């Protein structure tokens, strides 16, 4: 070992470790999937929409379901590291905290992306959806929106494991901050599905949100990780 490994190398290693752990246990993804499925089914009891109406409400339902499911997964990201004092070991190691934050965020991004890939067909079937606008735009919205949810979610999950009743804490601090992102993802999705208006403003807003909070998260993660 002549030189210290780069930030990216450490990020990749940590991410690989998380993915392997998840692949073997499937804790997060299973609970998240089943939870999201439950939310979709329960929503469908509340609404009995026609094809035209479902285009208007599907964006909201889909993202609310994904948001709730994301919280389920986020709560497990850091509790896993509390067992056997892994987090303390990480704090003592010379590895940059940003690498840990990035790895966790990317890991959650992958989990939520898998969830979306499995959930969207269900939505299409259950709510009889057909998009009026171009479908590829939905892909862009999904990528940006997922990052918006997990970048803040991962940060706030790290913050809330330091509090009493941590499982309740996470949504309480995550949801208020995420309101503009939620508004953007829901409205972007609705405007693509209905084809009524252009989603460009919302896509830009999501991009700005992602950019700003990625920077703020990277800057503030170090003090939060080392807070005593």
């Amino acid at each position: 070992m002549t030189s210290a490994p780069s930030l990216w190398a450490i990020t990749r290693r940590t991410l690989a470790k998380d993915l392997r752990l998840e692949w073997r246990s499937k804790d997060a993804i299973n609970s998240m999937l089943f939870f999201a499925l439950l939310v979709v089914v329960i929503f469908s009891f509340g609404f009995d929409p026609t094809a035209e109406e479902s285009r208007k409400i599907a964006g909201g339902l889909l993202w609310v379901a994904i948001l709730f499911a994301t919280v389920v997964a986020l709560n497990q990201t850091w509790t896993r590291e509390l067992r056997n004092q892994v987090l303390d070991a990480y704090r003592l190691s010379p590895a940059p905290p940003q690498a840990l934050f990035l790895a966790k965020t990317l890991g959650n991004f992958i989990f939520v992306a898998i969830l979306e890939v499995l959930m969207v067909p269900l939505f299409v079937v259950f709510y009889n959806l057909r998009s009026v606008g171009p479908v590829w735009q939905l892909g862009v919205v999904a990528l940006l929106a997922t990052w918006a949810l997990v970048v803040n979610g991962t940060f706030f999950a790290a913050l809330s494991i330091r509090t009493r009743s941590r499982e309740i804490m996470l949504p309480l601090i995550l949801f208020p901050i995420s309101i503009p992102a939620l508004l953007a993802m829901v409205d972007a999705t609705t405007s693509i599905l209905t084809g009524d208006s252009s989603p460009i403003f919302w896509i830009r807003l999501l991009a700005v949100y992602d950019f700003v909070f990625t920077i703020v998260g990277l800057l503030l993660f170090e003090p939060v990780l080392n807070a005593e």
Partner: protein
Amino acid sequence: MKTLFNVLAVLTLLLLGYAFCQAMFIAPTEATMGDVQRIFYYHLPSAWVAFLLFFVNFLASVCYLIRRNPGADALALASAEVGVSFCTIVLLTGPIWARPIWGIWWTWDARLTSTLVLWLIYVSYLVLRHYATGGQVPVLAAALGIFGFVDVPIVYMAIRWFRTQHPQPVIAGGQGSGLDPRMWIAVLWNLAAFAMLAFLFVWVRYRQALASRALEEAHAQASLDFETGSTP
């Protein structure tokens, strides 16, 4: 310190009284809305003071993360608490005015919605402070304070766009276009009075937070001394 506080408290009371006279008796009655409009003299100053306090919270949070001084943390806590109180006044006086004027208590208009979201963000800040324990509270709270403040312009942009896409006809006829000069005087007096009041509250809460911190440290020190004293 105590005399200065008492002098300021008396001054604030006088100012509040005078501002009340200005708002209730001296400012002219609004032509279409009548006396209901007078709530505006409390609504607007509260809003400005709340926004100012949230900004103070942001500055104090940044300062705490850089310098780690307990004073900055106490100021962040005090300004967030008083800010949320004033923001609550805004959210309560708004509907009281809206009911007779617009005929509804609430509408998802841009300014109402963004104020509500702002309120939610800072309530979550206080919730975090309440639930977090131990010496890490100031750092966690400071991080959330910065996140919250950075979010404010994004909230504002999102909600403004959201509402310009779906215009609300009820907004027509609101105030804002051309105030009578005497109304302006009442607004400014009330603004001064509320700013003083907020300053006093923040001051008290700031001293209180510092004192309770000192007390906790003294307790910890005392139990430490006891432990070391009792063991041979």
